């Protein structure tokens, strides 16, 4: 998986993911998300337009980050999820929990 932190939007910095988001990748994601929260961001955007697969570990990590954002008074935004990611959200009923933003 590729993970890039995008700080251009200071109100809502972003994490751009690509590839496969599974248990091998969650540590890197958590480190990046926690760093943004520690720097004072309460909202984070996660671009998942180029993610081809997310497993239960990746989903758990997104839920965890969403909770931390909300505890800080903000929100986790999922930007333009790819088709498989969108369907995985639907099948796991997480589409109702996440704030999904389409470009």
């Amino acid at each position: 998986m590729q993970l890039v932190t995008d700080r251009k939007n200071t109100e809502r910095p972003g994490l751009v993911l690509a590839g496969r988001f599974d248990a091998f990748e969650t540590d890197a994601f958590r480190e990046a998300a926690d760093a943004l929260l520690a720097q004072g961001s309460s909202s984070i955007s996660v671009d998942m337009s180029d993610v081809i697969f997310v497993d239960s570990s990746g989903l758990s990590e997104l839920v965890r980050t969403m909770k931390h954002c909300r505890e800080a008074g903000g929100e986790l935004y999922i930007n333009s999820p790819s088709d498989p990611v969108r369907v995985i959200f639907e099948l796991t009923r997480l589409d109702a929990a996440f704030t999904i933003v389409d470009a």
Partner: protein
Amino acid sequence: MITSDLPAYRVWAEQPLTQPPKYSVVIPAYNEAERILPTVGAIAVHMSSLGEPWELIVADDGSTDDTVDLLQALELANLHVLIAERNGGKGSAVRRGVFAARGDVVLFADADQSTPIEQFGDLLATIERGHDVAIGSRAADGAAVANKSMLRKVLSKGLNLLVRFGFGVPFADTQCGFKMFTSEAAETLFTYQIVDQFSFDLEILYLAQNRFDMKVAEVPVEWIDAPGSTVDATKVAIEFLRDMCQIKWFDIRGRYARANHVRPAPSHHLRAIAS
């Protein structure tokens, strides 16, 4: 212009097929409640994007967790869940799935997406070139393997040498959980199958190669070791050796001279799908 695969997926998810499927995908599942839904999602989107009628069959293997309930709650029109009363082994689950499959081409794929479904086309191209069986291979030239432990690499290599030179199955990887068959080859091979456990793939390839003289090709695939795998590599290696001897013994004793299973008749088959 970016095209979306979602409309095709929605049709597949909501409208039962009105014609026989061209492709069947069989997933054996034992206590896969944590992993099965993302796998179904990824497979459903990719397969629907191909533009051909297809069906997904999950052959439960006596799961004691919520695997079956989760799948049935999806209410996907072309997902069929086969329920087993007890755990009979991966080989028995795949056989039930293959016997229920109606497609011209049958793929069996592991529940963990360790071989991404995007490799379907590579195996299909091999079948369309006239092969009876196309097997995903983590050891063929061009394969990409990620996160496999050193112990598993060493055991795989050692066992493969035995398989190739002591067992008469000339493939670099017999155990990858991503194999495609023509419907005729699938029915024949699984009718003669005896081994219900982990090594059933080895038996299937042994039969294809040594009893039925089928055209089998290895296709290099991308493979990512499934996080959270509970497979004990050493234990599995010992069982594999035992099964290898057993398959030879079955052959010597003539156990492959006759069919060992009967594919259920269509009416029974439809009831099984409905369950």
